[in-house]
């Protein structure tokens, strides 16, 4: 059984979408560790190490994601998370931005996949399953 750590990063209180996402991931048989809202970036990494997680799935709605996730992949590597897959989605900037540009910036921070708020949950789940090798 694959393990996923999820939550809302930084000082972001927007919990609704992430809770729905968490339920959807549980429904396809993943073990999901939900950290809730207002979760520091470091906390995701700490728990991922503890649970030997396969993926970290981050939500951010309030617009500060980029500042909150500075050097996220590097910190994962430092913590010894070599193969962990990183996902982030939601409203990742303050104000509306061209999504291509947003994706580029978060990939530069080390995320494997970046999603706009309009993504269909099913599409995300399909990609997640494929990436983790579950069906």
């Amino acid at each position, binding site marked *: 059984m694959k393990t996923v750590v999820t939550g*809302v990063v*930084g*000082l*972001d*209180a927007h*919990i*609704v979408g992430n*809770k*729905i996402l968490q*339920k959807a991931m549980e429904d396809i048989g993943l073990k999901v560790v939900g950290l*809730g*809202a*207002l*979760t520091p970036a470091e906390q995701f990494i700490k728990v991922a190490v503890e649970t030997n997680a396969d993926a970290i799935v981050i939500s951010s709605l*309030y*617009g*500060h994601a*980029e*500042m909150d996730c500075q050097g996220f992949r590097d910190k994962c590597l430092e913590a010894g998370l070599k193969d962990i897959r990183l996902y982030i989605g939601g*409203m990742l*900037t*303050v*104000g*509306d*931005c061209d999504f291509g540009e947003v994706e580029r910036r978060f990939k530069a921070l080390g995320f494997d996949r970046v999603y706009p*708020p*309009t993504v269909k949950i099913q599409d995300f789940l399909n990609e997640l399953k494929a990436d983790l090798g579950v069906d």
Partner: protein
Amino acid sequence: MLAKWPTGGEVDLDEAVRYHKAMPAGKNLALLVQKARAAGETLIYPRGGVALLEDQGRLMLGLATEGTADFVPSTTDSYTRNESYERAEYGIEKTKSTGKSALNGFPIVNYGVGKCRGLVEALKVPAMVLPGTPMVPLIAEIGFAAGYTGLLGGGISDTIRFTKELTPAQGIRNYQYVDRLVAYYAEQGVPIHREQTGFLTGTLIPPGIAIAIGILDCLLAASQGVRHYSIGLGQNLNIVQDVAALRVLPEVCREYLHRFGYDDFFLGIGSHQWMGAFPRDAAEAMGIIGMGAAIAVLGNATHVCTKTSHEALGVPTLEANVAGLRTTRKVIGLMRRYRLPEGPEVSAEMAVIGREVRSVVDSVLAMGDGDPGKGAIRGLEAGILDIPWSPNVFVANKVMPARDYSGAIRYYDAGNLPLPQDIKDYHRRKLEERADREGRKVDITMALDDVSEIAKLLTAE
């Protein structure tokens, strides 16, 4: 308190009182709200905050002039809300270097009293602080000293809707600080408008819960000496229920104020346009906004907080904010003070909400041996005070709402709320009626689907 960031040192309370007294009376929000209530007018104001001082000035001025807002906001950013002033400073710098706002609000503490006075002085209308956090004392000190005459927030409500690990006890203490400060200003002859955030997490909040928490926050403020207070309810976009809620609120709140001996008390009613997820289409969003303006007038709200067509896209531009205001004001004008006549539907809904509120508030007060603060803390612990979608670990988070066929909010799960059994049954029946009509079951997907229902586009994206 003032030592948390250097700008706190700028606050000189006596000087601030003198400063307020020298301000034109038309810029005092408490006086404006009282006048509007007496005249049956509906005031409008938006949310709004950006990273840079000059941009915030342009925003506030534009909202007042182009937007015709009766008063204007300074919404703080999420770092300020969490006392991360260094990160806010970094956000300011980043904004300056990239030219794109890196903060989702205005870092009022970082700018401090002097600079913020410049913002307020440039206006002809009152300004209000929207802290959006229970870590509020420093924000309040600086805001009031800078000439702001209103502040939105509540000790119970902001703790449970915004924070994760803050105890309700601490959140309440923080707002007691603010409310004492407001009372002090008032004693010195400077009335300040306090509004409470009854819209909570904005996501299908049952009106009974919203009003109960509003009343408890109100009693807490009153006990600190506040005598001018508004409770702000979120709209759920069901005319009957929203109007019923706006009507029950002052009735029941006055009962409790009277019971505690606060009879000489100004109570305003805020109405917040739909606080949940918006559709991305601007035209659909404008429909929600227009409908929200009508509901506020139908329900005799004192003021309405407006949304924008950018709600689902990100922090709105000035133009989008202006449009939301103008649509709202146009509709308010067209309504010409028309109130919904009190037919049997509204009365029935008022009776239900009223009984819910009294059950919850009475149980909470009983639990606190008559003290609303103690009662709230114990009530939250026991789950007899509870809200949906709270990020806070001290909230039971068992309540789950869903809409009935008419669109009214019902309890899919009432958790441990101390509601009379017949009322629980009533809610359940209403949900079953919907399930029948829609040929589905009453289950959790109904509740979860409803979270995004209003946001769903008329045509697939």
